[in-house]
């Protein structure tokens, strides 16, 4: 019974991780940037919604405000920071001129600088105390499922995660902009020949990623005690979900999140102190046994 419960909780927890991982996967898939600020940005979104809720806004309205704000932020971050960093990568590729620069490391270093600065800033503004977004009854509400009681909030999170991933997938597959995004990911130069402005397309992708990230951040804030430093864990969990699932596959990311959630809850069932560690170990095991992830993309990029 406990094991069954752990399994169900793991799957539900996986919903949160997949939602968190979706944006990380998207940004990497389109422009090969690993955004190390991903976690702290989710925490920022949680703080923003917390502030709005404390100002008296209903939670749903806070989400309606925070998500578009993050989309705009994502567009700006891409144009202002990541695109210039990417230009350095290209520069180091083509010219091979000898400026001792960061070269291909530039986007990584830039995002890391943002991550550390933002984490410390949050700490100064909100202190290191843990917070939680008040949700009234929602946090404790449960749905009976056979012999078990399943938390309503985790269930909603899982459903939202699946819906967001499906929506992003449809957007990528069916719309002209989504097609352009995949084209840019394949070959930015060739995409430009067909009227796609890579810099703008990258920014749209980041805007989308930031929007999903903000949504994920709000769900984290509702279900977990978070603090500025919690962004580090968020980043690691999101990253592990992406790698376990397989690079470049959003459905893989959903699966990866669930596997990670299962590993953590089942690990915690074995030893209450070892949940997170068990997740890390499963991740490392996947790395050793199946470096391509569980659902690797069929066509290599």
């Amino acid at each position, binding site marked *: 019974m406990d094991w069954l419960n752990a399994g169900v909780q793991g799957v539900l927890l996986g919903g949160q991780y997949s939602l968190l991982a979706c944006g990380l996967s998207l940004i990497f898939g389109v422009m090969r940037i690993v955004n190390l600020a991903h976690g702290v940005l989710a925490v920022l979104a949680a703080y923003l919604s917390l502030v709005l809720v404390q100002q008296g806004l209903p939670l749903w309205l806070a989400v309606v405000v925070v998500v578009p704000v993050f989309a705009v932020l994502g567009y700006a971050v891409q144009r202002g920071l990541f695109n210039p960093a990417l230009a350095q990568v290209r520069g180091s590729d083509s010219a091979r*001129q*000898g400026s001792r620069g960061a070269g291909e490391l530039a986007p990584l270093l830039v995002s890391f600088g943002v991550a550390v600065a933002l984490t410390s800033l949050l700490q100064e503004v909100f202190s290191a105390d843990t917070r939680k977004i008040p949700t009234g009854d929602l946090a404790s509400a449960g749905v009976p499922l056979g012999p078990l009681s399943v938390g309503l909030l985790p269930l909603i999170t899982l459903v939202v995660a699946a819906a967001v991933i499906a929506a992003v997938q449809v957007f990528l597959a069916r719309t002209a902009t989504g097609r352009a995004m995949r084209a840019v990911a394949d070959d930015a130069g060739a995409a430009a020949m067909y009227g796609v402005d890579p810099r703008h397309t990258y920014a749209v992708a980041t805007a989308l990623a930031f929007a999903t990230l903000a949504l994920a951040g709000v769900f984290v804030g509702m279900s977990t005690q978070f603090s500025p430093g919690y962004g580090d864990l968020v980043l690691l969990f999101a990253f592990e979900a992406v790698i376990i699932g397989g690079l470049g596959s959003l459905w893989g990311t959903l699966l990866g999140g669930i596997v990670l959630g299962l590993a953590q809850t089942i690990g915690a069932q074995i030893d209450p102190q070892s949940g997170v560690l068990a997740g890390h170990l499963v991740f490392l095991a996947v790395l050793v046994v199946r470096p391509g992830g569980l659902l690797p993309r069929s066509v290599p990029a």
Partner: protein
Amino acid sequence: MTEPLLRVTGVAKRFGRVVTARDVSFELSAGEALGLVGPNGAGKTTLLDVVAGTLRADAGTVTLDGQDVTRLGAAARADRGVARSYQVPRPFGRLTVFENVLVGASFAGRRPGGGGAPGGRADGAGPAGDARDRAWHALAVTDLTGAANTPSGSLRLLDRKRLEVARALATGPRLLLLDEIAGGLTDRELPQVVGLVRRLRDDGVAVVWIEHVLHALLDVVDRLLCLAAGEVIAQGDPHEVIRSPQVVEVYLGSTVDSVPDSVPGEPA
């Protein structure tokens, strides 16, 4: 009968559905120069990569001095005397010209059977003197001594191409693989490169040279091998190969009635 220096047997390589080498075989002895021609996409550079060890063939074998090196990587083959230049020069942009060549002189040829002398010691003293001598000699042969202290990232094209060759030479190669070292050079620069390759061959180095500048190639090579779509379509005497109907067809199209019959620049 002695074993040829290089023996390539039945090499095949494909990328996804694209076949870039299909059952390619040839041999090469010391002091022999082989020209490699064919239209774009014929698989010439792939073949060079397979011989150099930067790519692993799907099938077939590569032997050096009768020793099977098919499964060895590029560094190990460099140790055994294989050196190559890249079509698009790949200098170590943040090192000077001399340092670039010193890399070649310091690392390759350290195993038994390798061509060069031991390169130096891994101590604070840096590469030993004989590595420096070899590096300097390679610069001298390629006429680059004047640019020794120039950062290689700021070299002009001819010098970058020379540097490719110098770096390869500094390894003390027995087999030199050259990928389009003449393309893009001016009419005045071309003879210098041609002269260099000929000297090397005369010194006993085996050379495989991919080149589109045909008259440069025909000045030097002893044999010509023409690839098309990954297959050897002609091999042998350079002037016969270049006039053979198959070669003319892949270059100019199927039904050309006139063939260039004046090919100047007979090798000495």
